[in-house]
């Protein structure tokens, strides 16, 4: 008696791989590897981008010799200098931190501005911006 191949279609498809049973080891390996890579990437990529953006940034920390607060108009004027990314005052406004791109701006360029405003400023420190940020976070 001739048989009807339709009877065994499902079995045939399973054998030929048309119909998959569950998830294969290969697919599982790809999924697990992808999850590991995505997790790893989520940690490493933002850090890499931050490092790339900050690689030329440096912080210069000034204080006034008399220990007084920095005038706001001077701080604002410094912020407008080419190559200066950010100006921040701390310790009750007595310390001025200038973050600048060392390839464009030199910390010594601020001296004429201080002199013009009769400010007697002292450079306390120059430090890599990323290193400074890490130090601040630890503190």
């Amino acid at each position, binding site marked *: *008696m*001739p*048989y009807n*191949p339709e*009877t*065994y279609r499902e*079995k*045939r498809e*399973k*054998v*030929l*791989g048309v119909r998959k*049973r*569950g998830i294969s080891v290969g697919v599982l390996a790809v999924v697990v590897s992808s999850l590991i890579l995505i997790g790893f990437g989520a940690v490493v990529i933002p850090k890499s981008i931050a490092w790339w953006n900050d690689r030329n940034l440096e912080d210069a920390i000034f204080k006034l010799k008399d220990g007084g607060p920095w005038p706001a108009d001077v701080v604002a004027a410094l912020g407008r200098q080419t190559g200066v990314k950010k100006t921040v005052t701390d310790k009750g406004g007595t310390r001025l931190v200038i973050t600048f791109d060392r390839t464009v701006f030199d910390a010594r360029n601020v001296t004429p501005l201080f002199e013009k405003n009769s400010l007697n400023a002292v450079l306390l420190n120059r430090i890599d911006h990323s290193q400074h940020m890490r130090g601040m976070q630890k503190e």
Partner: protein
Amino acid sequence: MEQDRHLIEIRGIGKTYQAGDTLVQAIREMDFYVDEGEFVGIMGQSGSGKSTLLSIIGGLNHPTKGSVCVDTLDIYSLTTEQRADFRSEYLGIIFQSFQLIPYLTVLENVKLPMAVTGIKDNEQQKRALQILERVGLANKARRLPDQLSGGEQERVAIARAIVNQPPILLADEPTGNLDSETAEGVMGLLTTLNGEGQTIIMVTHNPGMTRFAPRTIHVRDGLVVLDETGSRN
């Protein structure tokens, strides 16, 4: 016009082994078909090539020439993985020496083929108990194989072979280790299964057993010498 198809098509197969310096022709050339629902006995003396033939049909022994098609699948052109799936989907195999796992209970032995199918455990349990009920061993499901008689062990082996509802049952000397009365009981069970539509190919050297199979293929020296179709006694 489309040719009639057969569930199993053996086309010009041959098998040669290298035994030391000698080439042994286990199968010289065989051609035959088996249709759905047939009970075929393969009868021959030791060394006639009948067990080699069964292992070739079972996808376990690559023929030197020819092809074996089951449900249109040329099983030796499949990949190794596909052939393993083929065995799992299409075949139940009964061995002369039962091949039950001695440290698993009867129920666990019967559940074993379902372990790779993804069937849930409670469904496996239910199906295995139904099959054991069918072979008359539901009350011995928790026993270990060595707590059973030879005939009972063979029934467990049959239950294990049919639990995944394979279209084809291959039996290699299923009564070879049994006394004649027990053997008759096992053959009765196979006959019942065949009556329900199960395709069975049984290898035997015992002429008395072929009377249960409506068709007997006689093999000798690696050749089919007679393909005999008669009625079941």
